[in-house]
């Protein structure tokens, strides 16, 4: 059986047949993207798949005693595939073919069709899927051979510990006591240079927030609250928390700033540079509203700019206001999207008094953004981090700030290459969600995430058990950290600090001279 036929229309006589929810009330010109096939030989009619599908793509047809499908609703989240106890379900690309056309690709045709039907801005979730050049894949790492010994990280100490915060221009010692005379700016130590990226409560569920907080505590790193405030029940994880102050100022109050380790001013985000966050009212539950300090059920719209920041001088005022508010005990970070002038902007941010600059590249993700913005605005993080590091070095102010890179980090090699390019640490968001079941189906903006990640629905939120989720996240960070130690050992380095900004450990393959120059790396073999 291939249950691909349309759902039967519900009539009075067929009231016992559960009516499926269609995406569109009127016939749509959109073709289904996926085909759900249920192998009759294996299906035991337990209806687990029907219960798990939160997009209305599956229903149980009691009259026929079989699972029916509404394929245009399937987003390929694979929840049903994973949960089926008999592996009876396959989600396949829908076989409807268009005539080949390199310019008018199926996605382009579908976007136009969807807009013709809705007249709106096309929304999407997650990071750009447009295949921007991934420079991580074109950079090779060095390894020690003969003339310098490699190190076995299982036998010798290997350090990934990283201190985030502004470093002094020079160090003065007291000649009598031998102690440090220089006053250090506040520093935050992380055991591994991988932090969890800003994902707000509201965009993700409270259980995901708790899992991120607990995983950060387990692995000695930090999680970022995003712009939606911090639920009071997570205040105990304050030492592992970066709190965000964004243009909407949601959930910002003295205690919120006090519990955190780092305060981050969000200017922009890689997935949607230049526009603010948009949390639809449906996702603003009572608890989200309480945490954000807004009325329940109202849209939480962040203004595109911070309305009190129209210049570096304005930014400096906010940085110092936040430092003053927390008695100069915490580093203040400024997060911007990687854009054409981000190196110069980074220089301005450093001079404005920030301790940390976070750069988020074009592959950065989001819970909801206009598709056209996500796929076209910003620049790749590799270029941004290399040029910002270079610029700050040339100006002699690199030590004043820590650089955090974000936007599409897929594995430990991406992380270590970013550090060799000059980053102090990286943010991971998408990878963390994938660790919790995300399949990059890009339906986050609907609030119907079947994995209970990007939703505030009471029933769907239950799908993430923080006990399990925190362990999965911690496992991911531990795995990556071990791999980074292996790579460092192979390079003959025993501390990540020695690799930071050390681009001689990178070589490029297949890049133009200009690209290699911006990245500051030599051609392989050169």
């Amino acid at each position, binding site marked *: 059986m291939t249950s691909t036929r349309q759902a039967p229309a519900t009539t009075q006589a067929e009231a016992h047949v559960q009516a499926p929810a269609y995406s569109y009330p009127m016939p749509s010109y959109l073709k289904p993207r996926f085909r759900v096939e249920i192998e009759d030989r294996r299906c035991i009619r337990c209806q687990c798949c029907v219960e798990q599908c939160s997009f209305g793509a599956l229903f149980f047809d009691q009259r026929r005693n079989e699972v029916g499908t509404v394929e245009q609703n399937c987003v390929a989240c694979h929840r049903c595939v994973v949960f089926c106890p*008999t592996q009876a379900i396959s989600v396949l690309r829908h076989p409807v073919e268009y005539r080949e056309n390199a310019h008018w690709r199926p996605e382009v045709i579908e976007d136009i069709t969807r807009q013709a039907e809705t007249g709106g801005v096309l929304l999407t979730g997650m990071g750009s899927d447009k295949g921007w050049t991934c420079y991580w894949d074109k950079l090779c790492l060095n390894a020690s051979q003969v003339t310098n010994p490699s190190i076995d990280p299982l036998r010798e100490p290997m350090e990934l510990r990283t201190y985030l915060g502004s470093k002094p221009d020079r160090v003065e010692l007291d000649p009598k006591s031998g102690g440090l005379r220089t006053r250090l700016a506040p520093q935050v130590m992380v055991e591994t240079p991988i932090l969890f990226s800003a994902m707000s409560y509201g965009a993700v569920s409270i259980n995901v927030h708790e899992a991120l907080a607990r995983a950060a505590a387990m692995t000695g790193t930090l999680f970022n609250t995003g712009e939606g405030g911090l639920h009071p029940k997570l205040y105990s994880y304050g030492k592992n928390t970066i709190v965000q102050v964004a243009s909407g100022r949601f959930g910002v109050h003295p205690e919120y700033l006090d519990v955190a380790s780092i305060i981050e001013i969000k200017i922009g985000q890689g997935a949607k540079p230049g526009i603010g966050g948009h949390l639809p009212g449906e996702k603003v539950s009572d608890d989200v509203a309480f945490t954000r300090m807004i009325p329940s059920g109202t849209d939480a719209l962040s203004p595109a700019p911070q309305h009190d920041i129209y210049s570096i001088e304005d930014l400096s005022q906010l940085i110092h206001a936040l430092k003053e508010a927390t008695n100069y005990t915490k580093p203040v970070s400024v997060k911007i999207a990687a854009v054409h002038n981000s190196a110069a902007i980074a220089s301005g941010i450093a001079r404005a008094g920030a301790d940390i600059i976070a750069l988020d590249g074009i592959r950065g993700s989001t819970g909801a953004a206009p598709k056209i913005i996500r796929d076209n605005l910003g620049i790749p993080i590799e270029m941004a981090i290399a040029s910002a590091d270079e610029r700050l070095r040339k100006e002699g102010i690199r030590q004043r700030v820590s650089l955090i890179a974000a936007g599409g980090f897929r594995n430990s090699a991406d992380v270590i290459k970013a550090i060799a390019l000059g980053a102090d640490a990286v943010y991971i968001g998408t990878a963390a969600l994938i660790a919790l079941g995300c399949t990059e189906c890009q339906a986050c903006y609907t609030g119907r995430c079947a994995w*209970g990640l990007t939703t505030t629905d009471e029933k769907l939120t239950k799908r993430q058990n923080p006990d399990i989720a925190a362990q999965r996240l911690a496992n991911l960070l531990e795995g990556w950290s071990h791999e980074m130690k292996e790579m460092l050992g192979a390079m003959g380095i025993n501390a990540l600090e020695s690799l930071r900004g050390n681009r001689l450990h990178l070589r490029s393959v297949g890049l133009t001279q200009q690209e290699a120059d911006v990245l500051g790396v030599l051609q392989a073999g050169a």
Partner: protein
Amino acid sequence: MKRVYPAEEFCVACRLCEVYCATEHSQSRDVIRAFKEEQPPPTKRIFLQQEGAASLAINCRHCDEPRCVWACVAGALTKDPVTGVVNYQPEKCIGCWTCLVACPYGVIVRDPNRPKIAKCDLCPGRDVPVCVAVCPNRALVLS
């Protein structure tokens, strides 16, 4: 004694506990064969309760004061004084359904294939009952 406790806040209503409970008590102990080939079909001993967003799975509580044991007229239900498990001996059962009426949780059911009952036996021979082992979200806890 150890019991299977449901964690309502993490139950995702997938019913995998029911599927594997029935499989564990089938002849073949193979999911597909048990459900598609076996006659009589397997019977589950754990029951998902669901209303709106709330759901949880309940099985025999192995009560300290077991009403089913008191009610049983045939001596088929006994409370093990050492382990605390409420054991069922089908060969003694006469199918009078008194225990079904006596059970305050409704977790004893008629075996549809014979004049006997079916109830949770905590999966003898296993470290943890199969429902606890397969629950994908740790919504069933043995403690």
